[in-house]
């Protein structure tokens, strides 16, 4: 059975290879190949899952070792896969949502002449992401880690003729690279500490090493997670990443890739459990991002950017949960899965809306679309209810648990702080999602003719697009409840991530109740602000906070001023230095010799006799020298 694991990666990888090397002859049927292979991978995943369910909890983990990758004295890196419950969850999420989005893309990218390539990239992403989650050592995980980075780079910049897209892609890759640096240093640190970087040995032997070392590793891993999961301070790329085609935003920048950080932290749970300081850092990052994303989400008028903000903040929730240790891991993953469903659904909905509105992304130019695209409206609405955590829907089950866990951080002030933040986040989430909902589907229509001057005439999207949305909507409605049936999800993950029941500082029902209240308040506020009076087509100046939030709370400006400008000046001055100083020294010496020889030249006056003199003189000196040598 475990021999099938490799197939999970192999199938989409094959697809990518075929599609990217296949050339134009595959332009017509290419997307089918891609989709098929994604589905194959999903099927394999399901097969393995059922097989796994067959076994008892302790013996579910599968392991497949392919070949020795980098065998060097005292440094063994193998290509080996490990499929335990945690990986399995991801595999199903990735392949499942991935397949759906493949299907969706068939319709969405229909008019793009480079559709074949698009599907090639998508398959490449699937392969990398699967490699990331089923790798059995950190180095192989790193490969997948960078692989998804590459795929996201290619997909964000898919419409390369748009400079904005190219820049966004580059930015995403670079910011991720900073995170990757953290990961690679972490791996080195592991190697020097444990002499290996396979999950098993490393995580088992955390007991025998110093806490300081573990804290260092933990912080570095956190840095990596920040890069990949768009957490403060490395979150700046996610907004721009929305330049990519919407299915990409749905798959990579909502459902799967951006959650890799959560996976990393959960996977390395043993390390974090032994390093409370690192955990605290994780929690803080999570909490900050949670608010950051939410606030940004409130201000954006671009529907995708608003959703991106919300993604940020939702992942903030997950990171927060993951930072809480055994009481949080399971819920982090659970929220991750449910979020995968509804956020993907929301993005696909947004994509469908744009599809109908000539790729218009400004929500202020939408309005009253519910009549024109009912399916989209319904599915989007369900996703909306799910994400704000409307009781009974997926989001409710997972987010509520996280808030509880946050309150249970410790029975002191911190518990209150983090719990409060989580709670507040829930409210804001409700606010901006309601805002999105209202501005898009309700109110009167504010459509504008696009650049080419043709009036948009919204229409429902083709089946290939709506079906995935429907499926995801189902997921976002029922998944959470399903998982929570006598804590099946928690039990399922327990062997990998351990589980302790959280003991919040205030009683669970109180938390639940307050959550509901908060989200209702948020929604109501949004309704008051946007539902009651018509939405202006051009954004009002807005408060200072709003304006800051529109600019991602000035984070980009900061980067630009400090990093970009500084870097440019640095490089420019260095180029100058290299040319004048380093090179100048050498050329200077050369010039000096030139001048010297110029003077020496004067001695060559062309008179045979003076040459003869020098000859004789030289001979005389030589003889004298030899004689002296003899004498000495």
């Amino acid at each position: 059975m475990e021999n099938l694991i490799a197939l999970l990666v192999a199938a989409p990888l094959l697809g990518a290879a075929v599609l990217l090397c296949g050339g134009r002859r595959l332009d017509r049927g290419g997307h089918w190949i891609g989709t098929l292979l994604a589905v194959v991978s999903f099927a394999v995943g399901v097969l393995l899952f059922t097989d796994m369910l067959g076994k008892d909890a302790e013996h579910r983990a599968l392991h497949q070792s392919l070949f020795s990758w980098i065998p060097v004295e005292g440094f063994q890196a193998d290509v080996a896969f490990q499929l335990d419950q945690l990986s399995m969850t991801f595999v199903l999420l990735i392949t499942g949502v991935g397949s759906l989005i493949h299907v969706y893309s068939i319709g969405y990218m229909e008019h793009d002449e480079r559709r074949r390539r698009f599907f090639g990239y998508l398959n490449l992403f699937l392969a990398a992401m699967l490699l990331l989650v089923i790798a059995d050592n950190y180095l192989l995980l790193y490969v997948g880690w960078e692989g998804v980075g590459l795929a996201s780079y290619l997909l964000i910049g898919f419409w390369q003729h748009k400079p904005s897209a190219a820049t966004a892609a580059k930015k995403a890759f670079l910011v991720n690279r900073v995170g990757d640096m953290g990961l690679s240093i972490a791996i080195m640190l592991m190697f020097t500490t444990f002499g290996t970087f396979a999950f098993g040995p490393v995580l088992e032997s955390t007991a025998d090493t110093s806490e300081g070392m573990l804290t260092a590793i933990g912080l570095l891993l956190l840095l990596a997670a920040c890069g990949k999961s768009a957490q403060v301070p490395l979150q700046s790329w996610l907004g721009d990443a929305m330049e990519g085609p919407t299915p990409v935003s749905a798959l990579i920048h909502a459902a799967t890739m951006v959650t890799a950080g959560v996976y990393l932290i959960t996977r390395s749970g043993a390390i974090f459990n032994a390093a409370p300081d690192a955990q605290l850092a994780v929690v803080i990052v999570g909490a900050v991002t949670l608010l950051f994303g939410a606030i940004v989400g409130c201000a954006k008028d671009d529907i995708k950017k608003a959703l991106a903000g919300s993604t940020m903040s939702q992942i903030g929730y997950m990171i927060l949960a993951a930072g809480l240790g055994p009481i949080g891991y399971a819920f982090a993953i659970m929220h991750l899965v449910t979020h995968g469903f509804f956020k993907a659904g929301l993005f696909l909905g947004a994509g469908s809306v744009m599809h109908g509105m000539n790729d218009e992304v400004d929500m202020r130019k939408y309005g009253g679309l519910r009549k024109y695209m009912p399916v989209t409206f319904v599915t989007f609405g369900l996703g909306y209810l799910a994400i704000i955590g409307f009781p009974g829907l997926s989001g409710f089950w997972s987010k509520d648990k996280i808030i509880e866990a946050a309150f249970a951080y410790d029975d002191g002030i911190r518990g209150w702080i983090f719990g409060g933040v989580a709670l507040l986040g829930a409210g804001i989430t409700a606010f901006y999602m309601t805002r999105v909902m209202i501005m898009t589907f309700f109110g009167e229509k504010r459509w504008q003719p696009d650049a080419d001057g043709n009036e948009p005439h919204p229409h429902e999207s083709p089946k290939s697009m709506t079906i995935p949305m429907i499926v995801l909507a189902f997921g976002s409605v029922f998944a959470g409840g399903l998982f929570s049936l006598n804590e099946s999800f928690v039990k399922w993950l327990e062997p990998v991530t351990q589980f302790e029941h959280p003991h919040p500082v205030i009683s669970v029902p109180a938390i639940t109740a307050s959550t509901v209240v908060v989200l209702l308040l948020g929604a109501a506020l949004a309704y008051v602000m946007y539902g009651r009076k018509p939405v202006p087509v051009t954004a009002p100046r807005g408060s200072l906070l709003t304006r800051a939030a529109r600019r991602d709370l000035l984070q980009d400006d900061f980067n630009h001023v400090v990093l970009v400008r500084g870097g440019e000046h640095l490089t420019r001055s260095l180029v100058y230095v290299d040319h004048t100083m380093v090179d100048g020294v050498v050329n200077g010496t050369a010039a000096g010799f030139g001048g010297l020889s110029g003077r020496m030249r004067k001695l060559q006056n062309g008179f045979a006799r003076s040459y003869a003199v020098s000859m004789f003189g030289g001979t005389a000196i030589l003889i004298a020298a030899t004689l002296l040598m003899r004498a000495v």
Partner: protein
Amino acid sequence: MSFPLLTATAAVPAIGAIVTAAVPSARRTAAKWLALLFSLATLLLAGVVGARFDPGGDRYQLTESHAWIADFGVRYELGVDGIGVALIGLTALLIPFIILAGWHDADPYETDSKRWRPTQGFFALILMVEAMVILSFEATDVFLFYVLFEAMLIPMYFLIGGFGDRAAATQPAADAAGGSDEKAAAQRSYAAVKFLLYNLVGGLIMLAAVIGLYVVAGNFSLQEIAAARASGELEMATNTERLLFLGFFFAFAVKAPLWPLHTWLPNAMGEATAPVAVLITAVVDKVGTFAMLRFCLQLFPEASKWATPVILVLALISIVYGALLAVGQRDIKRLVAYASISHFGFIIMGIFAMTSQGQSGATLYMINHGISTAALMLVAGFLISRRGSRLIADFGGVQKVAPVLAGTFLIGSLATLSLPGLAPFVSEFLVLVGTFTRYPVVGIIATFGIVLAALYTLVLYQRTMTGPVKLEVAKMPDLRVRELVVVAPLIALLIFLGVYPKPVTDLVNPAVGHTLSDVQKKDPKPEVEAAK
């Protein structure tokens, strides 16, 4: 006396050079084919060497030894260890691609046929370089190595100075200035002379050290001296050893280029044609790093350890400095050159980290850097030859017009930023780990190079390939068959070695083990003996 395989491997290209040069200029194409044929034959022989070499066996194998200059105990002594085999393989592998890529670089100007371009000479010189490089990888006699180390410069000088790409001549900027052709020629000769002078100075200092070594040791045989050093028969005064080491190291540092001796490389690579640039950075410069590994460490273990801190710092500077300057370049070729400087920093760092990971990584790095730079530089060459300009600003939106070219270029760039899954990642990570285990701070700083690498490669790709299509590139043709034949195998190799570098590592590991035992260094043990 078995068949002198190593001599043959070096002799074939040498003969090829002579034969090619002898072809009458009317039969230009025949000369090209001959050159290609001979380079392939060399590749074949190199393969035989690899097959006959037994990694588990003695340190030096397939040895040959004949008296050369008996009076000074100079011998024609050949022998290869794993590292040598690997690098011979790399050289023999790259040359056919270089020849194929430079197929039309030395054709006479169609504009004015008066100006003579010795096409055969171009290919003959390339083969000559190949012969010398291969022999220098084989030489186990210090003097013989020195001779080759210097002789190499002559053909390189002519290759750089004699055959600039016509792209430079038709730079719009230069055209505006007028007399662009002369200007290009002037820059070219400047670059060539700079290359020659730098390396000659290095070589001369090395010569002094070589003589000094002879005075101290009484012969030139690497194996004998190393053995004597190991057994303690040959005692060197600390200062003597240090001076000799510096003499050798200086030459190699110039060749490899290590900051601040690097400035010749950007000029040379900028002015030479892309294939020649590849020849410089991917083949010839490797002799320098190889020699550090083989001569510096073996002959002067103590001095090597003594100098390690300084060298590591210089390597670090090279890494960061090279990367930063690469970001600041306006000229594609110079950018690649500075990138190479950064990479050489990594190699040297790996060598002097004195850990098995570091040195295996360094060796692997030499090979991977050769392949990846070849891929990137050759594609860049194709690009430049199409547009007739080396300035990044003159390109834009190529991806739209020539997707295959852009794709190969992207893969080359990704290899340069050592993306996991491509060969350079393996080596770079090994080097970093190897360094980190002994010098954590150095390792961490070096890791910044990764980010910078991403910066300059992606900026290059973005500026040239993406964005709206520039008018001048609108008509740009995609890769032709010949060019595809050049690039595709290299890329395939990059991927293969990235996924399955075992063949090379198996070849290299024992040799590295020997080197480490020379310097009496052991890998630091992990803090926790996990899973043992």
